[in-house]
């Protein structure tokens, strides 16, 4: 991230003169390190998936009697919802960079609604799958991957709720909105992980 980027400028303007241009603000560094650790975490889960898949060659997929995984009617629409939420999140970031706190709050609340919609859609999808977490290696891996991702989406929803509440208190401005940037990084990360999960689980047969 360049020193002239909006994030750096916004973070820089809220620091005392003696501390300016000292690098990324601490909350962003913390979030980036956290996301790096999350990449390793999901890397381990993907490794488990491909390891189990390699061991069960020829019999990989939902257990006998359960229908094949289909992207319709649930998986694809909730994917579109989650991807759309990344856009609304970014619109919120751009709004607060302009100093428009009301617009930022509106976009954040819309992102929150889309995130919760994704979660509910995913749970509904679980009820239609016809297999559970203990139904073979595929069931265990499927529910572990999507379950942990869902937990991360819920964590992001909590973060978005905090952002909306703080925006309601007037705590963000054009100069002071590092928390908005940090949560947006996390939300985009969760979105990217789902795209990888969706592609792996539903398209790799």
């Amino acid at each position, binding site marked *: 991230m360049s020193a002239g980027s909006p994030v750096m400028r916004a973070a820089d303007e809220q620091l005392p003169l003696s501390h300016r241009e000292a690098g990324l603000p601490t909350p962003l560094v913390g979030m980036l390190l956290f996301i790096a650790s999350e990449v390793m975490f999901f890397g381990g889960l993907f490794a488990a998936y491909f390891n189990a898949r390699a061991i069960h060659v020829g019999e990989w997929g939902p257990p006998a009697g359960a229908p094949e995984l289909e992207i319709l009617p649930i998986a694809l629409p909730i994917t579109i919802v989650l991807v759309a939420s990344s856009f609304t999140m970014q619109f919120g970031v751009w709004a607060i960079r302009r100093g428009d706190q009301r617009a930022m709050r509106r976009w954040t609340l819309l992102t929150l609604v889309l995130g*919760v919609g994704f979660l*509910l859609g995913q749970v509904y999808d679980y009820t239609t799958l016809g297999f559970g977490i203990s139904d073979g290696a595929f069931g265990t891996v499927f529910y572990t991957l999507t379950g942990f991702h869902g937990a991360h989406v*819920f964590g992001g929803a*909590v973060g978005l*709720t*905090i952002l909306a509440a*703080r925006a*309601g*208190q007037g705590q963000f401005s054009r100069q002071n909105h590092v928390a908005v940037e940090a949560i947006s990084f996390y939300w985009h990360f969760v979105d990217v992980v789902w795209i990888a999960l969706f592609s792996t689980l539903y398209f790799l047969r």
Partner: protein
Amino acid sequence: MSETAFGYLLLAIGIAFVLAVVYAVTSHVGASTDRPRPRPPRGVHLPNPSALPVIMAVGGALLGIGLAFRADDQPVANPFFAVPGLIVFLYAIVAWVRAAGREWNETERGSHDDAPGH
């Protein structure tokens, strides 16, 4: 209403409830804080050694074992593993949050000096 639909409704209510509590608490904290937001002291602050990460991992592992290895007549999880695992896991979360709060208070009170690392 079918059992599945009822569970689905309960989950939706649970999510909405948790988010509403988070919103209310955050709004309350923001509204009641007149003093400037606290800043950590200069220098590098390192947390004290703690067994809580290990305790939480043990709780999480027990919970996972309980979910993965259940008998046919156990609908959700094996309670002999899952219940102690859940208790240990929740205890670790609460203890960790309290420890972080204590640590922050100690840091705010200035018990640390401005040495480069402590």
